[in-house]
């Protein structure tokens, strides 16, 4: 496995996370195959990456050749394009059945050595890996949003993930300047078991009229020195995605801590999904 060199990366799903992952990989000179079921979403994703790169250059956060970086990314709706990739990073919505169907389909296309990184926010890795025949090559990598700016990811070892897969994953993450820390499998892992409690309860505080969103986030940024408050974070992730994740946490733990705030559900009904829709707890 030490000889296994990653040159190309297949990315499934071109939503918020998939877009960030694709940008990060292309920035780090990997060939990227970005797959989605919608051409429109793929084009939107590419435009976002382009803007992010231009913005990075403008803010002097980094210096990228925009066209060269963009050209590293192949957009496609055809999974067959994944036949030569060394690693697959999956970022599709948090629906176990949909994920499993996709893994089964893609595994028949990808080469045998391919590693499958599940970029889920809450679903236990073993829940996915155990249903597949190549479970030793399935590992959780929880990329955090916004991916291009992050320096750490939690890596989740499923109960049948091989040590080779863990080592390769950590080496791969190091190559894209992301530190990793390996934890054991659990719904929501470390990040979301904690962060979604904050977001959910912050939404309840808004609903109960205890505080305005600005006040809640101010307390977190100025008081706890978080770079971003829980409600801005929820807007960034997408309110619909936050609701899905909280529901998944509840389905595993059956604990009232994870009962989704009605405020969040109402926002989804109204189409107030955060930054991606222009309005969430804040207006964008």
């Amino acid at each position, binding site marked *: 496995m030490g000889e296994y060199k990653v040159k190309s990366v297949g990315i499934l799903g071109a939503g918020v996370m998939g877009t960030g992952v694709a940008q990060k990989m292309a920035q780090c000179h990997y060939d990227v195959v970005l797959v989605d079921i919608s051409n429109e979403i793929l084009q939107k994703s590419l435009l976002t990456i382009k803007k992010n790169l231009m*913005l990075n*250059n*403008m803010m002097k*956060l980094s210096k990228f050749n925009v066209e060269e970086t963009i050209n590293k990314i192949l957009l496609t709706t055809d999974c067959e394009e994944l036949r030569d990739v060394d690693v697959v990073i999956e970022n599709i919505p948090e629906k176990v059945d949909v994920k499993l169907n996709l893994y089964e389909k893609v595994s028949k296309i990808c080469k045998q050595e391919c590693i499958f990184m599940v970029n889920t926010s809450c679903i236990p890795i073993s829940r996915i890996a155990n249903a597949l025949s190549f479970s030793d090559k399935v590992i959780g990598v929880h990329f955090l949003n916004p991916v291009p700016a992050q320096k750490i990811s939690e890596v989740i070892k499923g109960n049948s993930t091989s040590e080779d897969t863990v080592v390769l994953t950590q080496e791969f993450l190091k190559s894209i300047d992301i530190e990793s820390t390996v934890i054991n499998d659990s719904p929501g892992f470390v990040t979301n078991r904690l962060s979604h409690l904050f977001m959910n309860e912050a939404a309840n505080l808004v609903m109960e009229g205890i505080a305005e969103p600005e006040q809640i986030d101010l307390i977190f940024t100025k008081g706890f020195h978080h770079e971003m408050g829980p409600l801005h974070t929820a807007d960034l992730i997408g309110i619909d995605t936050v609701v899905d994740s909280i529901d998944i946490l509840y389905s595993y733990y059956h604990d009232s801590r994870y009962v989704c705030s009605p405020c969040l559900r109402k926002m989804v009904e109204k189409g107030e999904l955060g930054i991606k829709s222009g309005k969430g707890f804040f207006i964008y």
Partner: protein
Amino acid sequence: MQIKEKVREFLSRFLRNYNVADDENLFDNKLVNSLFAMQLIVFIEREFEIALTNDDFQLENFQTINSIATLIELKKGSVLGEINNGGQ
């Protein structure tokens, strides 16, 4: 509403209880960060129905309310020019 007023209103969401002058440098004075910059770009494109290109992504175009308004006026002018040319 005039361009500057719209930009000022947008900025007020980030700079609560702070009146930013039209020629005040937003970035030098650490009033905003890079996350804000992305939201500013999204706002400009959506609100004024223009598409910013690589050449527009120069910090001096976004440093003050004056420079943001100038950029928007220029871009809107070029959009109108394209429409007029297309119509001939």
